[in-house]
């Protein structure tokens, strides 16, 4: 690993100041993805700004019609949160399906969405539930946040502060995880709110995406059968040693149906 200077600010303002003072600074959240990539020398930075000391960034609040999750909230805290469990059980299920217990104890929602791994779970949660990302300077809709492979709409030095999830009438989560890593081969979050449907897929492309044909079918009839006959093209889907693109296309259909059934069961 390349050396770096370590910063542990106690406030968001201090973190911002240290990031903007650095030519090559990077925030550190749980470290579950950043540390391995630094170890492999796939990434490096001059200044690492550790956000773990900023208490205000962690926590879960039930607001008016939404649940707000602080950027430094660990996955385990989302799994155990009564607010999330009651308002959006599918989100608690998503958090519980991430990695393993050691990862859930340390990994954070902010870290996951900023790293924007193509097979990460939270991006589907944000897009499928229509969440809003609050940063130190603006609010970004999930639809605009994920822009490419490990790419987000964040500017240099911009820090995610929290994520607001609107409480849906129903939502469901279904994941086909890799058996060893538990990263999503394909996973789907679907939600229904006031007649409109969002269905987001992770693991299948460079970054998370919605499937409009499925959403339209579900808006008329929110049932797994409503998607019968809708095939997702395998063009542009990921291929790796775990699954080729045709298999992933097939899995999108299967996981979408399971997600709808999960939503209906709640």
């Amino acid at each position, binding site marked *: *690993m*390349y*050396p*770096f*200077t*370590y910063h*542990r600010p106690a406030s968001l303002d201090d973190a911002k100041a240290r990031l903007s003072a650095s030519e090559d600074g990077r925030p*550190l959240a749980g*470290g*579950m993805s950043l*540390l*391995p990539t*630094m*170890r*492999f020398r796939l990434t490096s930075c001059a200044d*690492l700004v*550790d956000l*773990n000391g900023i208490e205000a960034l962690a926590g879960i609040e039930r607001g008016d019609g939404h649940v707000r999750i602080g950027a430094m909230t660990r996955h*385990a805290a989302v799994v155990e949160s009564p607010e999330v469990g009651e308002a959006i059980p599918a989100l608690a299920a998503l958090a519980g399906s991430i*990695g*393993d*217990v*050691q*990862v859930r*104890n*340390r990994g954070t929602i902010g870290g996951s969405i900023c790293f924007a791994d193509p097979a990460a779970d939270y991006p589907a949660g944000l897009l499928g539930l229509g969440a809003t990302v609050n940063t130190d300077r603006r609010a970004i809709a999930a639809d605009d946040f994920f822009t490419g492979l490990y790419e987000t709409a964040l500017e240099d030095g911009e820090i995610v502060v929290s994520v607001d999830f609107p409480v849906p009438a129903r939502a469901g989560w279904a994941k086909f995880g890799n058996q*060893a*890593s*538990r990263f999503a081969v394909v996973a789907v979050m679907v939600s229904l709110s006031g007649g409109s449907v969002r269905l987001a897929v992770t693991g299948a492309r460079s970054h998370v995406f919605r499937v409009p044909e499925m959403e339209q079918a579900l808006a008329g009839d929110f049932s797994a059968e409503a998607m019968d006959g809708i095939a997702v093209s395998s063009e542009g889907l990921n291929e790796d040693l775990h699954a080729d693109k045709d298999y992933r296309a097939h899995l999108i259909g299967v996981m979408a149906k399971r997600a709808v059934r999960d939503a209906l069961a709640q």
Partner: protein
Amino acid sequence: MERETISVTVNGRAYERAVEPRRLLSDFLREDLRLTGTHVGCEHGVCGSCTVMMDGVTARSCLTFAVMADGAEIETIEGLGSVEAMHPVQQAFWEKHGLQCGFCTPGMLMTAVELLKANPDPSVDDIRDAISGNLCRCTGYQTIVESIQYAAKLMREDGP
């Protein structure tokens, strides 16, 4: 690169050391403190052999910088029990052959301790789910699962 001075409590004992920021907690424990009970298998967050407790919950010490543990309470396998006075989880692994080469064992034990704290009577599925982040290349997991079930029984009978 400039060193940072950190204070860490490990198994109840306070240590103060100057470390390079890129020093992993696993290397800090093994090489700076000479607590070699914590094992390092993959060094990139896959095998779980480096699992320790950090402020009461398990963490992979190879995915944590030592500087991040400044002010934290760490528990390692050395703090669990001794040959004379084994922790029930150690007793159970010993009696039920929960290890062969022993490489994965420190991490398995720490993970099992965390599981049994939250769930004193886990099902086989609960156990398999809890140890899913810990790889074992010897046992085929069967005896590990049996050991954790037996440890749960010992702990229910004797209290923690």
